[in-house]
């Protein structure tokens, strides 16, 4: 059954990517696999060695982004870049806390769902922690789609003398 889920996930993921859906490969694969799981009516767990390999591979794809050349080019921007990232991470924590207080979303889900980034990383972390990974992925998909849709608005509200 896992093989059937992987095959369907591959087809739907590839199609979503071709249609330029944000995060299309992961989101499409999730939808395809969910379809198989719902039709079969049972859980289809991945073997633990596969899970471990996939989680490490998600980390690997992020780690390989760090090169000495990039760090060198980043040096003059390091202060603002780190400050910006830290601000967004803390804001995400705050938003997650507010969601926990005002909705039925548990803190364990909200903390990962409102993190400012990395759809595949947060999906893998949610799976690793055994949290409600589908809801966490849903939040991140909404985030990516909304940011894309908001780009024209974001450009409009640039500082006046920076236009």
């Amino acid at each position, binding site marked *: 059954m*896992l093989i059937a889920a992987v095959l369907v*996930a591959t087809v739907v*993921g590839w199609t979503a990517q071709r249609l330029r859906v944000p995060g299309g490969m*992961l989101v499409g*694969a999730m939808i395809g*696999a*969910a379809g198989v799981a*719902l039709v079969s009516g049972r859980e289809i767990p991945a073997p633990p060695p596969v*899970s*471990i*390999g*996939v*989680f*490490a*591979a*998600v*980390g*690997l*794809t992020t*780690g*390989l982004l*760090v*090169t*000495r050349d*990039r760090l060198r*080019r*980043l040096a003059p*921007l390091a202060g*603002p*870049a780190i400050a*910006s*990232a*830290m601000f967004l991470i803390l804001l995400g924590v705050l*938003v997650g806390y507010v969601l926990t207080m005002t909705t039925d979303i548990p*803190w364990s889900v909200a*903390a990962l*769902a*409102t993190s*400012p*980034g*990395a759809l*595949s*990383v947060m*999906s893998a*972390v949610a799976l*690793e*922690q055994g949290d409600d*990974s*589908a809801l966490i992925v*849903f939040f991140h998909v*909404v*985030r*990516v789609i909304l*940011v*894309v849709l908001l*780009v024209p608005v*974001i*450009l409009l509200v640039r*500082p006046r003398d*920076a236009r």
Partner: protein
Amino acid sequence: MPAESPRSYDWADIGLAAAAALAVAIALYLLAVPGGLVVGGTLGGGAVALLRNREIRLPQLVRNAIQIMVGVMVGTRVTPDMVADLPRYIGPAAVATVALVGGGVLFARALHRHATMPPWIIMATCPGALEALVAVAVERREGAVEVSLFHLIRIILVVLSVPLLLLLV
């Protein structure tokens, strides 16, 4: 040589990076570090990339396979109850995103005011959609490299903050 030819990749470096990622991931997992597998993979892969002093590119096929497997592992946990529940979370998810985007915009304006940052700063402080924002920066010829570097830092710090974040849970 075509970009996706198997010969255009350094398989020895890829193997080394994958082995290091797996080793550190398993070590952190055994040490019960929250999110240890993902964080360990990042640290192991990043260490090899820095030590080799050159970019180690994974084939698109491999990157797609990783994305597909994450999608499969999430998707196969979906139940009918979850599907019925998701629509009511659109509002909270949208509010959370607008708060993050708004925060990013305010932070960009503050940086501009205090450090006279260039126009691309508004795209650099967005919470996500790296590819779309870099595409816009390229189209407008405004700091595409700088925007991508800001987002790289965001992604790395998000990964590194995971253990701390999970300690709060």
